[in-house]
């Protein structure tokens, strides 16, 4: 699946997008896999209350299932308008 990062999450991780070969069962499983990868991920995912997640372009939750998910995105709270 594709994992996308926006705003300061993108800056902290250092890339806008990457492909993950594993099949994490939930968003939280994916977060823990990413945290274990490298320090920059651990830093970006240190405080989940500062992050929002979208699964297949719909706002979701960290305990959401990733069954059949094609795209997961992590970003800070949105500031439109």
């Amino acid at each position, binding site marked *: 699946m594709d994992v996308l990062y926006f705003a300061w999450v993108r800056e902290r991780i250092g890339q806008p997008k990457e492909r993950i070969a594993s099949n994490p069962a939930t968003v939280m499983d994916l977060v823990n896999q990413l945290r274990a990868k490298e320090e920059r991920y651990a830093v970006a995912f240190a405080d989940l209350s500062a992050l929002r997640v*979208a699964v297949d372009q719909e706002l979701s939750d960290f305990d959401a299932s990733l069954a059949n998910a094609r795209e997961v*995105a992590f970003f*800070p709270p*949105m*500031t*439109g*308008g």
Partner: protein
Amino acid sequence: MDIRVQEAAFDLGAEANAFAGKQTGMGAVVTFTGIVRDLDETRMTAMQIEHYPGMTEKALEKIATEASSRWNLGDILIIHRYGRLHPDDRIMMVATAARHRADAFQAAEFLMDFLKSRAPFWKKELTGAGDGWVAARDEDEAALTRW
């Protein structure tokens, strides 16, 4: 319903005129325009607006569809820009048309409240002293509960 996510500037007067001109039987048109301003007197030189292509359009459609189901509306227009903007540039506009003004006003406010915190845009202020992401405000999240 007309939803546009674009980098280019838009002509507020021309858009408002075109929107009002294509309605029939509507007694009220409300427009709102958001303008880039210096949020913390940081001497901001520019604002960089990032968005999530694909999700942005879906989120705006969802918000507009919800507004259409709650109020008796004839039409909705949303234009939201991304990319590099400068103080006093127009970032976005919404327009609503309705038979009665209460529907047009309330729907426009609803659209703005949800655009603030449910549409995937992020603003970064660029200043001579460094750049910073604009933090979401608790009041914006709280504003959603009134609907």
